């Protein structure tokens, strides 16, 4: 068979996905020029006037820019730190459970929150925080003497609420990854340590944690690479899009959505979006370069 024909048929298999990637991913990359235009729906994408960096100037003059960037970065840092600690802790304990069925049962429960949509999460949070019927106002508050309040109007509690919701939704899933890694550690290392008289805590400190260190660093770095991205649903749907909370719930992603779909300010939306893409690109590249130094196998490229 001809080499040429062979190549063609392999390419044919790649073609549908290739076409899709070009449309879905690459055309919008070239569309970033919209951020340098004063977009006007009546004039369309190509005929709107060029304005240079005006959109960015306006954006960064507002308090919005500072708030959304601050929130995006600080929440991500909190998620990375607490998420890693909780997930590694659970993973170490989980790896101790040798009975397969018990292990699977616990694991299933732990990852369940990760399998549901943020919309359902917002319902669950509502069941706790609803001012009239919420579990906290009506039951827990009575037991622990917390005053009834309208949680969706009280910004000061939301950083904690959002971190708790994040941990509830993601710590189990992260622990599955770490537990899989711990269980792949060579059993003979532990056997040897036992013979040397090491107790379980020493085994964790001198075998599990050092072996785990590398994968934890890689996972953390990959998260740091996405530090300018946020889970839209967590910051938009879970706080019920409550205006009183914008100060502590606005992230770059919620800002872009609100500017594009609610205030129809395409200029601001595209400027914020392009800022996110470019800074995100740089952080991913840097994070990946560090990962490659530590362990080339885990690098993205």
């Amino acid at each position, binding site marked *: *068979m001809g080499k040429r024909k062979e*190549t063609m048929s*392999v390419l*044919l*298999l*790649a073609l549908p*996905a290739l076409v*899709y*990637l070009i449309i*879905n*991913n690459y*055309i*919008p*990359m*070239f569309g*970033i020029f*919209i951020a340098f235009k004063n977009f006007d729906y009546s004039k369309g*994408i190509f005929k709107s006037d060029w304005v240079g960096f005006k959109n960015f100037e306006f954006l960064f003059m507002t308090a919005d820019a500072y708030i959304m960037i601050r929130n995006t970065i600080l929440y991500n840092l909190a998620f990375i730190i607490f998420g890693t600690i909780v997930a590694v802790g659970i993973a170490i304990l989980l790896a101790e*459970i040798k009975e397969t069925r018990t292990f*699977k049962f*616990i*694991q*299933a429960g*732990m*990852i*369940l929150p990760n*399998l*549901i949509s943020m*919309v*359902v999460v*917002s*319902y*669950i949070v*509502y*069941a*706790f925080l609803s001012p*009239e019927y919420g*579990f906290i106002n*009506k*039951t827990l508050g009575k037991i622990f003497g917390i005053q009834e309040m309208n949680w969706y109007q009280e910004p000061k509690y939301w950083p904690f609420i959002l971190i708790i919701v994040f941990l509830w939704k993601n710590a189990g899933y992260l622990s*599955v*990854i770490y537990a*899989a*890694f711990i269980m792949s550690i060579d059993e003979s290392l532990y056997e040897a340590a036992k013979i040397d008289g090491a*107790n*379980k*805590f020493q085994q964790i400190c001198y075998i599990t944690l050092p072996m785990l260190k590398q994968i934890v660093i*890689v996972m953390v770095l990959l998260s740091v690479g996405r530090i300018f991205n946020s889970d839209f649903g967590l910051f938009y*749907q879970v706080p019920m899009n409550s205006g009183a909370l914008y100060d502590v719930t606005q992230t770059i992603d919620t800002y872009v959505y609100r500017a*594009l779909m609610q205030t129809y300010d395409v200029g601001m*939306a*595209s400027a914020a*979006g392009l800022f996110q*893409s470019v800074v995100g690109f740089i952080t*991913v*590249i840097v994070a990946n370069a560090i990962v490659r130094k530590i362990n080339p*196998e*885990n690098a*993205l*490229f």
Partner: protein
Amino acid sequence: MKRLKITYDSFRLLSFAILIPTLIITILPFILIISASFTNEDILVRYGYSLLPKRFSLDAYIFLLSQWDIIGRAYGISIFVTIIGTLINTIISAGYAYAIYRKNNKYRKVLTFIVLFTLLFNGGIVPSYLMWTRFFHITDTIFALIVPNYLVNAINIFIIRNYFSSNIPEAVIEAAKIDGATELRVFRVIILPMSLPVLITVGIMTGLTYWNDWLNALYYINNPKLYGIQNLLIRLINNITFLQSSQASTLLGANVVKLPSTALRMAMAVIGILPILIALPFLLKFITKGMVMGAIKG
């Protein structure tokens, strides 16, 4: 030696002592919404949502059944979108993965780069929103729920490619080709059946993405008739009364004219996660595998 065994056992006890409460805390929120959905409406209004129904009631579910035209429709849309999206995604991702796995393909490096770069950079939502709405006019069509964002993703392609590389020896392919099989035939008859485990794993993860997605509809659907279950849920939490119709009050009896709205919200949330709860025991193995593969070396 004896002392050693004791410390080992006490650590296992400690594991259970921490994991079981953690598990309970993780599950409690689910119990809360399930319990609330089975509680009598008057009790809910007085005492709020609680972990055990103070007075058991099926009113919320009876009401939901009476509105099955709305809910069943949303369910149908979610199921349709999930199945079609997952099938297309898995098959075309596998095709692409095959092209970057075959060493005889001289374009494999370019193709690998094309898919890898999508993980590093994106144009953001604004250009893609304008493209889908102004050039492809997908607003208020079923395509809006299937096509944007999720039809191919780089992680899936790499997971499948890695599976090919470590499980399918080139020799198998070469042997088939000596027997006269074309690349397309090799892919269909040898590769796909041999990689069924990874295709199922990738398919389940993609299926979850489609089932749980509400962003595409948020951007591209204005007509509530095209809402899947997630977007129906969003609409419901803001405004429960649109479910009310004269039909319902006749079904519940004339004395229950009032909508059991407090319980109803939670019953809807339960309906939204029901397929996942039912399928979890069967899918668990694939889901945990998918999570690990997706995180490490995407």
